[in-house]
């Protein structure tokens, strides 16, 4: 049994106008890759050091540990004396040039210090204000090369920030920087849901006095009112092909699940109970829905074919289970597990039906997988504040991100950027 040792990093990344969250990481992966990240030559000219963002991205995963360069500062492969880097398995170096038109060019290399070979060599050109985005891309490249999984540092998250009655629907980079407010209201906003291409967000807004479902383009900001039937309209979830959404309506009685095309047409009811059926979410292959229902007397998670048909109860442990989301490989699902008055984040394997509790418990709600399946994002509470948290899908590494203002609710991890 490997002993878990605790890594405690408090990254109060001072970055004016964008310092949105304090980030705290605890726990570590079973094996941590020792890596040295040398400050890039010329990066002092930027208001954000590329190498620092790369390092903080990698550290937050719990899968890497930083090796102190101890004053050595190679910027090119020919300057590296491999004998000096025995403590590290990998070495990241780079140079940054500013071109005449104000753009920056970054030459970046990842070196294998054991095999003494180059793992990655890339040149990137960008506008100087895109330093963080470039750094996330470099971190993604290192992460993929060293772990074999695709990195998620360049992906985005969405959540609701609440201050009293003032609610903002926000999207941000996966590290909480670059907040962008899509909607601000003195009414509740709920259940943001990313379209599979990452170019639209569906959500529930009470701006008309009760729950309506909207879909908003992140490219044009244009909105479609998807559902405004009597009662509550809520719980949007996109199909994997992005052509339709599952939504929940109450105009025919209790909350029931419907399908609707993304332009609001062709509404079809697909669940038929006289109890609560809500929180639908599509399987990655688009054939099944998971949803929450109290048809058995308590709120539990069920699975049904998208085209209709009988539903199968999946959860039996704890008093209630809510908010299911498929893992990207479709082999398991994550959910909010309520037991003994406490909410936990848990995953259940479809094949073994085994449940694994990932978190210590608290007011932990609304889990969603990162698109690489390695992390789960959820909302929790610390000292009365609603905050963002992540846990690695093996439960080992935990991260808390506390906003400077307000309470965070309803987080959801967006898809991979497709470019």
């Amino acid at each position, binding site marked *: 049994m490997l002993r878990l040792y605790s890594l405690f990093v408090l990254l109060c990344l001072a970055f004016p*106008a*964008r310092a949105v969250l304090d980030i705290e990481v605890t726990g570590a992966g079973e094996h941590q890759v020792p890596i040295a990240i040398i400050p890039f030559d010329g990066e002092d000219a930027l208001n954000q050091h590329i190498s620092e963002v790369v390092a903080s991205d990698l550290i937050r995963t719990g899968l890497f540990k930083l090796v102190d360069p101890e004053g050595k500062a190679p910027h090119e492969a020919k300057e590296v004396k491999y004998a000096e880097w025995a403590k590290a398995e990998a070495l990241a170096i780079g140079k940054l040039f500013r071109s005449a038109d104000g*753009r920056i060019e970054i030459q970046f290399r990842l070196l294998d210090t054991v095999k003494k070979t180059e793992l990655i060599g*890339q*040149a*990137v*050109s*960008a506008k100087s*204000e*895109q330093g*963080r*985005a*470039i750094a996330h*891309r470099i971190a993604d*490249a290192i992460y993929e090369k060293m772990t074999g999984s695709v990195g998620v540092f360049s992906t985005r998250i969405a959540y609701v920030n609440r201050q009293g009655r003032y609610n903002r629907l926000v999207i941000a980079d996966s590290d909480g*920087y*670059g907040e*962008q*407010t899509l*909607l*601000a209201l*003195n009414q*509740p906003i*709920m259940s943001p849901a990313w379209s599979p291409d990452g170019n639209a967000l569906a959500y529930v807004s*009470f701006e008309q*006095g*009760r729950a309506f479902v*909207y879909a*908003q383009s992140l*490219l*044009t*900001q*244009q909105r*479609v*009112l998807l*559902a*405004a039937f*009597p*009662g*509550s309209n*809520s*719980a949007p979830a996109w199909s994997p092909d992005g052509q339709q959404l599952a939504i929940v309506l*109450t*105009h025919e009685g*209790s*909350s029931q699940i419907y399908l609707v095309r993304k332009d609001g047409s*062709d509404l079809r009811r697909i669940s038929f109970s006289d109890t*609560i059926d*809500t*929180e639908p979410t599509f399987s990655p292959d688009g054939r099944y829905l998971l949803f929450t229902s*109290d048809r058995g007397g308590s*709120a539990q998670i069920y699975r049904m074919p998208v085209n209709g048909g009988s539903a199968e109860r999946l959860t039996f442990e704890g008093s*209630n289970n*809510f*908010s299911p989301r498929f893992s990207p490989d479709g082999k398991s699902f994550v959910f909010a597990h309520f037991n003994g008055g406490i909410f936990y984040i848990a995953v259940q394997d479809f094949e073994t039906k085994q449940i694994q509790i990932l978190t210590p418990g608290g007011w932990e*709600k*609304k889990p969603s997988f990162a698109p690489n399946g390695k992390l789960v994002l959820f909302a929790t509470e610390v000292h009365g504040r609603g905050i963002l948290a992540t846990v690695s899908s093996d439960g080992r590494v935990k991260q808390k991100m506390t906003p400077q203002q307000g309470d965070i609710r*309803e987080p959801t991890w967006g898809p991979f*950027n497709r*470019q």
Partner: protein
Amino acid sequence: MKKIAISVILASLLSACASNKPVEPFTKTEPVAAAPAAAPVTEAPVVGSAAAPDVNAQALAKAEADAAAQAAAKEAAEVAAKTDAVAPIVPPADPANALSQRSVHFPFDVDAIQDNDKPTIQAHGANLGNHPELKMRTEGNADERGSSEYNLALGQRRASNTRKALVLSGAKMEQIEAISYGEERPMATGHDETSWAQNRRVDIIYK
């Protein structure tokens, strides 16, 4: 509407200072087009074609189905009306008068009207029956022990059951709109039974 407009302006200011420049492709070196404007919606939302159900038709159908129940309820309403000869449109703040009660409460994860709230429901149902010009909204709420969506659904069931009970006491279905706030607008924010009990509630709001 004004509030929304102000919010929208706020949002556009906020988003203006946020960094949302699109990330350039990692391996390309040519410049990309300017960032798309981040302005949030400033106009009325576009309404999807399926988003305008025939509310009247539905209400009429339901009203017919409820006609029998209403006939029975009418008698009860008349009795209630006699005991309160001039039923007030704006009910008094006399705690002895059941009309002064504007909320009904529920146990955890329960949506059925409780016996001790029946006098409140009967009084408001009769009041609506005697004053067909009155309109009401039943607003369902839930405590935080559930997901936000489950609680929205639970609050909606509480509001709908309150509406049905009001109709059985003399109101007409179309006088009442049932909506839910779920756990989104708690009256009390503590993580304790005292707070939760206050939040498991349907508010009866005269419009």
